[in-house]
């Protein structure tokens, strides 16, 4: 799994690619727990490069959603592949996140 941060004007885009499973999810959890990431007013998780997510990956995303809610910061997801979208749907996760088709669309909304 690879994680790349793209700081923007108002939105911090975090690009994730690869597999988000029991063995890799800790890496994402650590990246999202960093102070400058956690405290950022608008976070966008770009998952266009993620082909696979298991409940271990969902747990990290849920934790980030809870942290964003508590800190009153914005958090959105973008670029879900059909395989990842299916796992979100089966889990009921599609309804608890703000999900955009792609990163550009998400940035416009988050920055506004």
């Amino acid at each position, binding site marked *: 799994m690879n994680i790349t941060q793209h700081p923007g004007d108002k939105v911090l885009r975090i690009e994730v690619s690869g597999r988000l*499973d*029991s*063995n890799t999810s800790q890496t994402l959890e650590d990246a999202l727990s960093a102070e400058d990431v956690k405290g950022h007013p608008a976070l966008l998780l770009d998952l266009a490069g993620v082909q*696979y997510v*298991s*409940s*271990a990956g*969902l*747990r990290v995303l*849920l934790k980030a*959603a*809870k942290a964003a*809610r508590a800190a009153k910061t914005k958090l959105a997801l973008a670029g879900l592949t059909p*395989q990842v979208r*299916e*796992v979100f749907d*089966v*889990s*009921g996760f599609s*309804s*608890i996140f703000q999900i955009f088709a792609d990163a550009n669309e998400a940035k416009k909304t988050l920055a506004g």
Partner: protein
Amino acid sequence: MQIDLAVDMKELERMTAAVEAFCDENEVPPDAAMHLVLVLEELFTNIVTHGYKDRTRIGEPIRIALTAKDDRVSVGVSDDGIAFDPLQAATPDLDLDVEDRPIGGLGIHFMRTMMVDLHYARQNERNQLNFSKVWTR
């Protein structure tokens, strides 16, 4: 295909590679293959995390067996950890808000949703879980 695994999360990669290779060889459609990899990751993770808490971890006691026939893959997962019937586990509430959403139980929910013919038995001090993935071409 049969693979024996140690009680160690490092084995996940080896298991995933074996399941993917099996699906390739048997021309299992990509969606069905992903479901198999996902459900087996969830079960394997549960066994490693909860199944051997107070037990010694000798050798490679977790066994996964896959058989392909027509539009079906039959799966057997067995281990000699603590007796646990995942089919008796509570169904997670998927409608709760972010604050109250639990994460436990999702793996078993995936199995119930994506697999058929689920069956559990405790035999010879081992958990034996069987299920199948079926698809239409």
